[in-house]
């Protein structure tokens, strides 16, 4: 018997549960302005999230998927990527999309049942939210292949949940990314649940990071509630990809504090204790503690920020509500580049029947 191969999976955190630095900070984390900017985004995302849930509860929005508890992931991804990079996200990384230029109004439109929400005001090269779990892992391979073929200094980032790693598309994606050494970062937000299915039902793998080994690519684990760790991992993976070093899979350990979506009731399948324990580790408070400890934050600044965020969200709600209704022909007009002759009759029928 001889050793054919050997693998280690490393776990990284920079801040402990109470927001104290565990080791010397990486360079970017010494820039207080940058960190308060991250904090501002995390706070805005949480405000947006709360409002979206409220709109749904009052019948003003359709089903909505909350990001509660996963704000550090949003901020880490959103702040690390350049405008030219391409984000291919699931419904759980709307915060990262916001940071990339998608507007809150866009997202309200989307969850409000209007395709115009995916027209995206900014981040025009990013993919629309992928609802069919893990299908976009293969799209990401195509994007990254195109980038590599054209020798561009860009990277595709594909975000997935823990549940998504059970699907063949995920694996086909990581395997192909490895085979071609593509500029591609897979980011798995392991929030412990896929609707009612706990992570232990998904897989016997001790970590999701080790799934990378099957594709012959690098895999690593970070504390997903520690925005500094997320950001650092993203920075490293993006730089590696941009430099021709190939793909990385990052597993971020976090927790879905909310129901799966507004159509779900998580109390049916998980205990209040578990959720209460998870609240103690949530990322916004942790970064606030760190900033406060370093003197970069205080109650007054917090109050101002909350006020600003709420105003910003409220403005977006109004923009959403003031949006004129969609054209009835929307379903035809952007299906093909032009409306084929065979569809003209149907298009006319929609107009006639709604007249």
């Amino acid at each position, binding site marked *: 018997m001889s050793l054919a191969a050997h693998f280690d999976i490393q776990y990284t955190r920079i801040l402990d549960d109470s927001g104290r630095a565990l080791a010397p900070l990486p360079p970017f984390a010494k820039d207080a302005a940058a960190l308060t900017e991250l904090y501002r985004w995390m706070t805005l995302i949480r405000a947006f999230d709360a409002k979206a849930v409220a709109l749904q509860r009052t019948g003003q929005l359709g089903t909505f998927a909350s990001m509660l508890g996963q704000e550090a992931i949003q901020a880490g991804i959103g702040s690390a990527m350049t405008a030219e990079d391409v984000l291919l996200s699931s419904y759980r990384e709307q915060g990262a999309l916001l940071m990339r230029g998608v507007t809150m109004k866009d997202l309200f439109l989307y969850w409000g049942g*209007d395709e115009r929400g995916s027209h995206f005001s900014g981040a025009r090269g990013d993919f629309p939210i992928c609802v069919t*779990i893990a299908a976009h892992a293969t799209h990401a391979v195509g994007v990254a292949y195109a980038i590599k073929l054209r020798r561009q200094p860009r990277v595709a980032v594909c975000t997935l949940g823990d549940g998504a790693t059970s699907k063949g598309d995920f694996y086909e994606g990581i395997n192909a990314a490895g085979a071609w050494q593509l500029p591609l970062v897979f980011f798995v937000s392991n929030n412990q649940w896929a609707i009612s299915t706990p992570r232990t039902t998904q897989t016997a793998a001790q970590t999701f990071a080790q799934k990378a080994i099957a594709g012959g690519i690098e895999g690593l684990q970070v504390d997903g509630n520690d925005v500094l760790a997320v950001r650092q991992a993203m920075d490293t993976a993006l730089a590696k990809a941009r430099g021709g070093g190939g793909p990385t899979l990052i597993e971020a350990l976090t927790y879905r504090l909310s129901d799966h979506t507004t159509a779900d009731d998580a109390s049916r399948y998980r205990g209040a204790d578990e959720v209460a324990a998870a609240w103690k580790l949530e990322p916004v408070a942790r970064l606030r503690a760190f900033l406060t400890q370093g003197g970069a934050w205080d109650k007054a600044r917090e109050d101002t920020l909350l006020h600003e965020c709420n105003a910003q969200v409220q403005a977006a709600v109004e923009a959403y509500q003031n949006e004129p209704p969609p054209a*009835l022909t929307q379903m035809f007009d952007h299906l093909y580049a032009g409306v084929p002759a065979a*569809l003209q009759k149907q298009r006319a*029928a*929609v107009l006639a029947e709604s007249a």
Partner: protein
Amino acid sequence: MAQITLVEAVNLALRHEMARDADVVVLGQDVGRDGGVFRATLGLLDAFGPGRVIDTPLAEALIAGMSIGMAAEGLKPVAEIQFSGFAYTVIDQILNHAGRLRHRTQGRMRCPMVLRTPCGAGIHAPEHHSESPEAMFAHIPGIRVVYPSSPRRAYGLLLAAIRDPDPVLFLEPTRLYRLFKEEVTDNGDALALDQCITLREGTDITLVSWGAMVYESLAAADALAAEGIAVEVIDVATLKPLDMDTILASVARSGRCVIVSEAARTAGFASEIAANLADDGLLTLRAPVLRVTGYDTVVPLARLENHYLPSAERIVSAAKHAMTFS
């Protein structure tokens, strides 16, 4: 005897058959503790345990493929695909394997499995949750495709599906899941799997539909009756194998037929029925065979969904158009 909804009828049939036959197992995403996202499998975990009520990893091809393996070993898997939009990934397994296992082995192996999936639009759901894939499945040799439209029919047809020795795709109209209740007796009586069901008799025109569109067709029939037009309403119920005899006999009497389907029009199942009428029924037709269908577009998100879906009004106007021929 109780008044129950369609989704409760599905649950009742599952419960009945799991109690009667220890080989029946239920599997899918969130079918256990959560009872399925629509609650179709509610309470089955507690009643039958995690061995027989199986929360799977998030992988539809796996769910279909492992059902084939289970069925080959003598179990009777009833698998749930959470929403119809995620059923396309199982076509490969159903077409290349489930529908072929018996034929490929010339009867040595069999594949008695049921694949259940909620279908259709009209509940303001997110993307991919409003699909009507029945025509694709009806094209597949070696399987059956069943689509109930009421609690009682859901109960009886699901029992039949589970007991059938071959693979059955069982489509459930989400829009009717909780729309109305019906008295369902839990007597274990299965319905026939190869018969259309005539819900209403009438000699002026025949309305043919399945799933949630049966509901719209019945509403249209009421409206038409008010105008003195006698409508026969046929619920296809089992799309494959198709009972064209019932439809042909009805059209032989009425001479007119409107087929209603919420799926995209081109190569939809409405076309199959119309094609049969154009062949075996041609000489009895007094009017063009009209199809009231979804458009050849993606089902729009919630705000335009109702402009896409066939409505009783659209059916009425098609029927009236057919009545102008004689």
